[in-house]
């Protein structure tokens, strides 16, 4: 089946080319048809390949396809090659499946936009690059996809480029990502330097072999450097501290874009990359500690920033940053499959949340401020119920998807084999974060769907349930927000329920088995007794319920007075959180402004005066002067011309004779 892998990225590429080149002349129906069917075909191909992959023995589940030799420079050799193993299979199904749903949703949400064709073309382009990213068989192809999705993201954030802020947000995303990419590229260089290849199927076996032969120690400086550099790339793409700042601003793009790119797929690329590189990370425990610590801080920090946001999409944006933190905790504590599991469930419920918020914004005629909403539940029942499903899922209440994946991550963090103490601390941060998550998510639900409508008359009149092409994806995603977690039921619960298997962990096992071996040989996984495990699980549920109750009390029972009272009493704290800890302002002051003024200096003094003035215009001026002088010799008189000829001859003859 491997010979069909290339079809998965090819279909979106075709869609992009057709819509991008000719879309302007097409009707909207045709554009939608092309855009949606191409992604649909990709999804079908992915399903077929999945079926075939399952038919193989678990240890043989690697399909590769080399299209052509891409570049060869000396010993540097790169193929344009694709690889499907269980990990990329899971990613591929998530990406194509959710993209398909969001394309359908977009046909409703973006229908009235005059640049509909451009939107659809960009969206297809995004899916193409995302498929390249996850299907590439080496880091270079992955990097092409990595940059490509960055481009698509930039184009779509600034899709309504007429708005100044949108263009600025797009630029910010691009620049911040560039900083991360710098690390990623350096990591690739170092990897090539160490292993002489960038292909997955060369690098990982070689690393294992070197490890087994003692040529590569655990925690060798090279491994740490490679892994940390790659993780810097991931902090850019996946919005972790300190490079998360672009993601909230990226909400300037159309809401389906936020759902697809800035929640479900692109931002998880960093998690995928770390999971893909699991062998190297496992060999560098210090890098893992960096990853999990940064992730835990991000998870809590971003969650607190979500508490006081009033823009419905901003809440979800900070929530995404926070949830990405959980994924990185998972891969950071060597529980790679748990990270991917949370990636999957998050893709379902966060896409659902964003699309629901889109549905709400659609109904509110573009207003995103939750202070103007309220009581929408009655008017938009489908949106309400689907969003409630997703909210319960993200809050981590059983039996919804988020419970299983988040709990798996926190449980594994508690038992972090390399650094047990740090693991406990990470667990603590994560658990607090889970409570905060439940709080701000239910705050969103209460402010939006309950209470009284606080918007204008006109808006109240206009509020309506969205059409079927928008609600259908919501229903599908809400369903998966419920059942998505059942693919990874932890052994503890599975036993009680009569031996339910952990499907996802088993499916992903071949990808991570080498890492598991290394971990168990270096630092045995601490045994967590069963009662403790049960109590950890219950604790996270209890924390979530506390968060929900608090939100209910503040924003439902005493919605009239308490939020304002708290804001006044804790003015300083309120302002700090409301302004997102002033991180943007600090970056502006510490980094952006100095660079800006330094560049102005370079521009005015070095470039404009020295290079342009003296270096470039100087010779130009000189040439013009000389030219004006020299042309005077050409005075039009034949005598002059003849004289010059004779003088030339005499000069040459003199040289010859008296040399």
């Amino acid at each position, binding site marked *: 089946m491997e010979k069909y892998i290339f079809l998965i990225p090819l279909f979106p590429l075709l869609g992009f080319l057709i819509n991008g080149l000719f879309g302007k002349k097409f009707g909207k129906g045709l554009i939608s048809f092309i855009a949606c069917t191409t992604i649909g075909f990709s999804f079908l191909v992915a399903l077929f390949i999945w079926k075939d992959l399952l038919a193989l023995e678990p240890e043989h589940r690697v399909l590769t396809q080399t299209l052509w030799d891409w570049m060869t420079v000396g010993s540097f050799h790169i193929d344009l090659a694709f690889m499907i193993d269980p990990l990329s299979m899971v990613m591929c199904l998530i990406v194509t499946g959710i993209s398909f749903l969001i394309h359908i949703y977009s046909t409703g949400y973006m229908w009235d936009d005059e640049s509909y064709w451009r939107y659809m073309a960009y969206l297809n382009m995004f899916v193409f690059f995302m498929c390249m990213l996850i299907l590439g068989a080496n880091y270079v192809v992955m990097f092409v996809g990595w940059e490509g999705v960055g481009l698509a993201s930039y184009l779509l954030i600034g899709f309504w480029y007429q708005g100044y802020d949108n263009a600025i947000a797009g630029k910010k995303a691009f620049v911040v990502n560039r900083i991360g990419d710098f690390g990623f590229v350096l990591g690739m260089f170092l990897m090539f330097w160490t292993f002489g290849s960038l292909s997955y199927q060369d690098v990982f076996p070689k690393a294992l072999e070197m490890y087994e032969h003692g040529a590569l120690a655990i925690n060798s400086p090279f491994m740490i450097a490679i892994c940390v550099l790659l993780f810097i790339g991931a902090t850019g793409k996946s919005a972790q501290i300190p490079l998360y700042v672009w993601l909230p601003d990226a909400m300037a793009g159309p809401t389906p874009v936020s759902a697809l790119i800035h929640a479900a797929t692109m931002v998880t690329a960093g998690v995928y990359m770390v999971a893909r590189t699991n062998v190297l990370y496992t060999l560098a425990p210090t890098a893992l500690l960096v990853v999990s610590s940064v992730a835990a801080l991000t998870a809590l920090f971003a969650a607190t920033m979500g508490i006081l946001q009033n823009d419905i999409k901003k809440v979800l944006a900070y929530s995404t940053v926070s949830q990405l933190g959980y994924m990185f905790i998972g891969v950071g504590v060597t529980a790679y499959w748990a990270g991917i599991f949370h990636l999957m469930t998050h893709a379902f419920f966060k896409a659902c949340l964003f699309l629901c918020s889109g549905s709400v914004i659609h109904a509110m005629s573009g207003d995103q401020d939750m202070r103007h909403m309220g009581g929408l539940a009655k008017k938009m029942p489908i949106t309400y119920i689907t969003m409630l499903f997703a909210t319960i899922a993200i809050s981590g209440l059983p039996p919804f998807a988020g419970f299983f994946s988040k709990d798996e991550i926190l449980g594994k963090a508690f038992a972090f084999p390399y650094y047990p103490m740090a693991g406990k601390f990470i667990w603590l941060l994560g658990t607090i974060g889970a409570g905060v998550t439940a709080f701000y998510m239910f705050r969103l639900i209460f402010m939006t769907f309950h209470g009284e409508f606080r918007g204008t008359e006109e808006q109240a009149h206009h509020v309506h349930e969205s059409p079927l092409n928008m609600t259908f994806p919501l229903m599908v995603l809400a369903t998966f927000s419920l059942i998505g977690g059942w693919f990874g039921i932890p052994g503890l619960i599975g036993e009680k329920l009569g031996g339910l298997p952990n499907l996802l962990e088993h499916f992903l096992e071949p990808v991570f088995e080498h890492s598991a071996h290394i971990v168990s040989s270096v630092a045995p996984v601490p045994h967590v007794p069963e009662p403790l495990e049960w109590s950890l699980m219950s604790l996270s549920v209890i924390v979530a319920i506390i968060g929900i109750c608090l939100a209910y009390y503040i924003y439902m029972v005493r919605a009239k007075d308490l939020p304002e009272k708290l804001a006044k009493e804790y003015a300083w704290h309120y302002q700090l959180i409301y302004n997102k800890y002033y991180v943007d302002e600090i970056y502006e002051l510490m980094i952006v402004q100095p660079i800006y003024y330094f560049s102005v200096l370079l521009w005015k003094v070095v470039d404009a005066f020295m290079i342009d003035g003296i270096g470039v215009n100087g010779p*130009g001026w000189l*040439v*013009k002067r*000389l*030219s*004006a002088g*020299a*042309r005077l*010799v*050409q005075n*039009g008189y*034949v005598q*002059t*011309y*003849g004289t*010059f*000829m004779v*003088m*030339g*001859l005499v000069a*040459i*003859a003199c*040289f*010859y*004779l008296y*040399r």
Partner: protein
Amino acid sequence: MNDLNFSFDFFHLWQVIGGQLILIVAGLILILADIAMLKLDEDVRSRRLGWLTVIIFALTAAHMMSREWGLHNIVFMGIFSADKFSIFVSIVMVLSGLLAALMSIGYLQNNDVMKGEYYILMIYAVAGAIGLVQSVDLLMMFITLEVMSLAIYALAAFLKNNRFSQEGALKYFLLGSFGSAFFLFGVAVIYGVTGTINLTKIAQSIAGGLYTNPAILLAFAMLSVGLFFKMAMVPFHMWTPDVYEGSPSVITGFMATAVKAAAFGVFVKLLFVTFTPMLSQSGQPDFQNTINLAALGAYWKPVLWWLALLTMFFGNLIAVSQQNVKRMLAYSSIAHAGYMAVGIIAANGDGRMGVLFYLFSYTLMNLGAFGVIYLIDGKERNAQTLEDYRGLGYKYPALGFLMGLFLVAMAGLPPTAGFIAKFYVFAAAIKEGYFLLAALGVMTSVIGAYYYLRVIYMMYMKDEVRDVVRGPVAMPTVIALVITAIGVIYLGILPEQLANIANAAQQSLSMIF
């Protein structure tokens, strides 16, 4: 050497100078055809003659490529040789004639000068030029040089009612006589000292020790100056701007390419056959001591070094302050002569190959540019200044694009033939250790980029101030422009093929006779 027993044989003659014979006979037939068509309208007659000329040039080129190219250095009666080098240069000149004839059909209509002798002069100019590069005999060189020059003088003066055309042609004629006189003097002195006018025999004679003879050196200087004049090397270039500006645009393009090719071809031949021969490789007994001749390099190389530098520098420099596009291109053609001279100074295979490649690609881009110039002109001197080119890129997108392409090629930017050509000659010079010359040459070409790109700037970034209306575009001109444009890009991307042919051509120089 083997063929120095002069014997006449018509087959032999046809083999060696078939191309010339075709042109000479065709020229005569064309005169008769012109008379035969006297009853027809002037423009119909002119158009038919033009197409006939195109066919004649095509036939000539076909004959040379198919028959003469395969010959191995045959010499006819010690006068003409058919070697790959001469044939390559001849084909460049025939190509130039062919493209110019195609363009002339439209040009003559636009300017109301539909006289039959135009094409006949053009044919004889090419015939003379071919004779010039095929000669291995100084006297024949002089005669063919004059055949070519006289036809060109007449063509330069072809716009009878145009003061500039008349003035330029007269200057050209006067100064050209000067140049020819120098050349003839040189021939006479050589004959006086060595007693022969055959290139190889002169080489044999001076190889015996005459190479430091002052008379030989003086004669060498004079011969060179005669050719430098035609090559438009500084300070023998001064006729060029006036003549190029005044002549009919298509003829300017023709002169700048065909005459330059002939002068360069014969100069290279003279240098590397007679004065610094490569014959030591041919292992012929009479040339055991040609090593002596290499000493002559110490004489001409410094001279050519300075001339090339001055030519590149002043050509580019003065072009900067020109307001008339034709006159600007005249200076630019002087600069290009300087670049080609760099390839000669390298005095290696790469350099000679580079010169040949340069001649070929320069023919394409220069004629292309003059084709566009005449179209924009409408009628001669109607719209030739930089100001007239403002905004034309949007008004006439196709012409603007073509002009931009040819100018970019002349500025030597990739992916055009101009870049490859410059690269070859400079690379050859660097290979021989002429770093300074190459560096200075590249710097002057930066000056060149300024005035070439200024035209493009005018065309695309300035608004029109004067309503310039281009003349009618004739189909043959379109064909010629398409050929040149495709050629300029093709050679820029895939130069290997032509480079290999040019290399084979320059190698034949080491085996003549």
